[in-house]
C-alpha cells in the first residue's frame, strides 16, 4: 500500500468540512475563528499534496502565503474580538449584529 495524494485530499476534505461545520454551529467568536483555521489548514494539506504530486513548487509557495495571511487575519480578528468582548464579556457572535463600535 502506498500513500498517494488522494489520501491527502480526502483528509483535507474531511478537515475542511469539520471546520465549516464548526464555523456554522459554534457561537463563541474565538471558536469560530479556530474553525476558520481548521479550514485553512485543510487547504494547506491539499496544496502541499498537489505540490508533491505535480512536482510543482507553486503549491508550497501558496502555503507560505496562506500562513502569512492567516497570521494577519488572526491579528486583526482577535483585535476586533478583544474590542467587542471588552464591551460585553459574555457575548456570543449572535449578539454582535451591528457594526457600530
Amino acid at each position, binding site marked *: 500500500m*502506498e*500513500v*498517494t*495524494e488522494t489520501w491527502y485530499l480526502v483528509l483535507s476534505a474531511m478537515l475542511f468540512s469539520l471546520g465549516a461545520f464548526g464555523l456554522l454551529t459554534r457561537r463563541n467568536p474565538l471558536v469560530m475563528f479556530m474553525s476558520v483555521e481548521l479550514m485553512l489548514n485543510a487547504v494547506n494539506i491539499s496544496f502541499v499534496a498537489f505540490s*508533491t*504530486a505535480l*512536482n510543482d513548487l507553486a503549491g508550497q509557495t501558496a502555503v507560505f502565503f496562506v500562513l502569512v495571511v492567516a497570521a494577519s487575519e488572526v491579528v486583526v480578528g482577535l483585535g476586533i474580538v478583544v474590542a467587542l468582548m471588552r464591551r460585553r464579556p459574555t457575548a456570543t457572535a449572535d449578539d454582535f449584529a451591528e457594526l457600530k463600535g
Partner: protein
Amino acid sequence: MREPGHPFLSDGVNFGDVLLSLVMVVIAFVLCLVATMLMVWFERKVVGRLQNRLGPNVAGPFGLLQTLADGMKLFFKEDIIPTKADRFVFQLAPYLALVPAFLTFTLIPLAGDFSEGGSASSTIAGREFFWQVADVPVGILFLLAMSSLGIYGILLAGWSSGSKYPLLGSVRASAQAISYEAALGLSLAAVILVSGTLSTQDIVAVQAGEGFGGIIPNWNVIVTGFVPFVVFLVAGTAELNRPPFDLVEAEQELVGGFHTEYSSIRFALFFLAEFMNTVTMGAIIVTLFFGGPSGPNPGGTFVGPLVGFGWFFAKLLVFLFIFVWFRATLPRVRYDQLMDLGWKVLIPISLAWLLILGAIRIARDGNIGVANDVVGDAAFVLVVGMVILGLGYWMVRTAVVNARAERMEAAGLTEVAVLPDSRTEQEIS
C-alpha cells in the same frame, strides 16, 4: 510520489540505524538530565557564593547530590490537584514544559573535531554519525519552534490551576513569549544570513573556519557584529523566564506564578524543565555564536571528539555562569518595561542590524548591478532598506499617536506636558 526526505520514511531502515538513533537519544537524554542536575547545583552554589553563603554543602561531596535529594523529596510528597483545577490540562502541563526543553537539546552538536583536516563526524561499526541526536536541515527553525512551544506548559499550567495568581502568571507568560519570539527570530536571522545554512552542524562548521588574522576566531558573535548576540542573549533570557525577566513566576508579586498550585513531582518537572531550558539556551548560544565544539584540536578517533566536547563544555560554562550572575544581581523588570524593551528596543535594533548585514552581504557578492561598485551597492540597499524601515515605523507610530489622540479626545482629555525628569543628572548624595 517524490522520494521523502528521511530514510526512515522510504522504507530504507535497518536495525542498525534504529539502534544507533536509540542509543544517541538515550545518551543525549541522560546527558541532558545530568547537566540539568549539575546546573541546579551550580546555580545554587554560585549564587550562594555571590551572596556570602556556602550554598549546598551537605549532600554528597560539595553538595553535588543536593538536587538528587531534593528530587527524591519532591517525588515522595503528596500530589495535590486543586478542586477548581481543570484536571486533564493540569496534569498535562508539566510534560508540555519538559518535552520541548529536551527536544531542543537534540539539535546541539556536542562534540566533534572541527579543526582543519579533522572530521566532525565519527564512525562506529561502519556507521558515520555526527555527535548530535539529529542534524535537522532546518535546525534553527526547529529551535524556534521548540522555544515557542515551551510556553504552552506555563500557559496551560497557570490557566488550569483555576486560581488567580497563576492565571496572571499565564497571561504574562503568553505576552512575553510572543514579544520576545520576534526578537529571538530576528537575531537568529542574522546568524542564518552570515552562515548561509539552517543546520546547526553546518553553522558550527562555518564558524570553525579560518578567522581574522589567524588569531581571532571566526565566531558568529564577531562575524555578525556582536549586536545580534546581545539581542539573542537578552531575548533568550526572557524566553527562559529567568531573572530579570522572571515575571511569570515572580515570587514577590504572584507568589509562585504559574506553578503556585503545583506540588510534588509535577512541580519537580517544571523545575527540571526550567533548568533544562537554561542549559539548552546556553548550548544554543555557544553553538550559534561561539563555534560550539570547534577549537584547536589534536584530532584522533577518540581524542578529537573528546577535545571538541571539552571546548563546548568550557564555553557552555561561561554562559551558564552569566545566567546565574544575572539572577544574583539584577532586579526584576516590570511588565510594561518588559514589553517596551522587546518591542521598542530589541526588535527595531535587530531589524536595522539585519539590514546592515544584508547590505554588507550584497556588497560582498557585488552583483545587484545598481551602482556597479561594491560600496555603491551597499549604500543603495541600506538607503532603500532604511527608507522602508522608516516608513513602517512612521506608519505604526502615526497609528499609535492618532489612536491615542482620538481616545483622549473622546474621553475629553488633553495631553499633559511631560514633566522634566532631571533625576538622572541630579544624584542624591
